[in-house]
């Protein structure tokens, strides 16, 4: 197995673990709202690290991106479609 691949995957793994430590630290140190923003920003970064490096999305063609982005867009639309409920009622 080529060493450069191994090193790259190990580096990504170390980053992922470091980000877990960061979000746990944020949850215990920062005020609630700031902590939540940081925690979910970190989760998105972790997901992108896994998708781009371990799932090799960064070398993938546009059709694969399209497959993933369409359902993701629908989920975000769904989320915002339900927002009026707690914004106006909650």
């Amino acid at each position, binding site marked *: *197995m080529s060493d450069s691949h191994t090193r790259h995957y190990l580096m990504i793994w170390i980053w992922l673990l470091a980000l*877990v430590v960061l979000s746990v630290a944020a949850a215990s140190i920062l005020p609630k709202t700031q902590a939540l923003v940081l925690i979910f920003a970190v*989760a998105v970064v972790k*997901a992108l690290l*896994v998708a781009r490096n*371990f799932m090799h999305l960064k070398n993938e063609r546009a*059709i694969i991106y399209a497959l*993933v982005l369409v359902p993701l867009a629908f989920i975000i639309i769904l989320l915002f479609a339900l927002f009026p409920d707690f914004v106006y009622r*909650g």
Partner: protein
Amino acid sequence: MSGAAVPPGKTGTWWFLASEIPVFGGLIASYIVVRLGSAGWGESSAHLNFTLALINTFLLLTSSMTVVMAHAAAQESDFRRAANYLGLTILFGLGFLGVKGVEYTTEIVHGFTPASGIFWSFYYGMTGLHGLHVLAGIIVNVVLWIGALKGSLAQNSHRVELAGLYWHFVDIVWIFLFPLLYLA
């Protein structure tokens, strides 16, 4: 990437993962909306075992690394090494389910069942569905592991990558479930 077409198996796997996004995404979106819409119910999450969830996060992130190492080994036709990494991935997956089992048991013993309230319904629903996905991934990895040991994987080595794609997806779902349930 070069001009080569995407292999059909890979397109199929991504198509399947794309269909999984609304499954977990729908649950997560509903969870966020219900949680933001009703004050106080997040206190239930204080009863969850944070340490065990942290251990599980470590296990699943590490298993993503070992399964991609198996893919790299299979690509270079080093099936001995691929088998070792697949074996490790299976162990981490079983470890995850074992820890989850301990968590469920403790919670149920303390009286927190899926019927204990909306938080618990979401908790058992989301982690249960995720756990089933981990179990399915373990089964696929066991089949590949046996193939790697017997030498039959050589004709189908691309399957290690496809199984890995699914495994990483399950890992990404946990990346979001962990803060949603245990940190927020």
